[in-house]
């Protein structure tokens, strides 16, 4: 009589322990996408800066080009006194 009671009382205890363990694992598995989302969010914020590239393009006008065009630009200014 005592043995089945003991085993019955023992079984749910082990089941509960197992249950606790599996719940924890499930929670960890459920948290994985969230962690992943956080990681990808970090990646996106790193890839974001596009504005400096535009400024670089503007700066990319080289001194050589400016020097080459200077004489022609001066003539253009002189021949259009109404708009300069």
């Amino acid at each position, binding site marked *: 009589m005592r043995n089945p009671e003991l085993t019955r009382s023992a079984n749910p205890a082990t089941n509960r322990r197992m249950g606790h363990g599996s719940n924890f694992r499930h929670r960890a598995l459920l948290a994985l996408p969230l962690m992943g989302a956080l990681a990808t969010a970090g990646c996106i914020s790193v890839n974001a800066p596009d504005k400096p590239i535009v400024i670089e393009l503007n700066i990319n006008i080289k001194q050589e080009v400016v020097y080459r065009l200077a004489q022609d630009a001066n003539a*253009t200014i002189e021949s259009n006194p109404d708009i*300069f």
Partner: protein
Amino acid sequence: MDGVTLRTETMTKVSMRQSLATLAVVGLTLGTLTAPAAAQNRDPAYSAARAAGQVGEKMDGYLGYVTPAAPALRAVVEDINIKRKAVYADKAQANKATVEEYALTSGCLLIAQTKPGEKYQAPDGSWQTRGNGPPLRDSRCP
């Protein structure tokens, strides 16, 4: 023989007079043609705003507002900037350059040509009043 030489002399005198007259006419027409071209230098509203420091030369080759402009002045300035862009685009294509390159080069020269008291944009973007010395310009300016 004498009669012939006399005739040729009178002929040359007449032709000289005619040529002088034509030269004078050409000179007069040239004068009348160039005079209006020189007279239509700038819109009076634009030159007044420029002298008052309301409008200044930007680094990019266009005019900018130093102080908030009235709609009438704004219309004049925008019209000038549109005309400038058209000229820049035309000349840039002829010189195998981009409009921005040609405009920036013009901006360099236009800032250099500002008179003392006029406004121009410094490389840091701030508005400066042209003094007697050289203006603050982009390092690429000739």
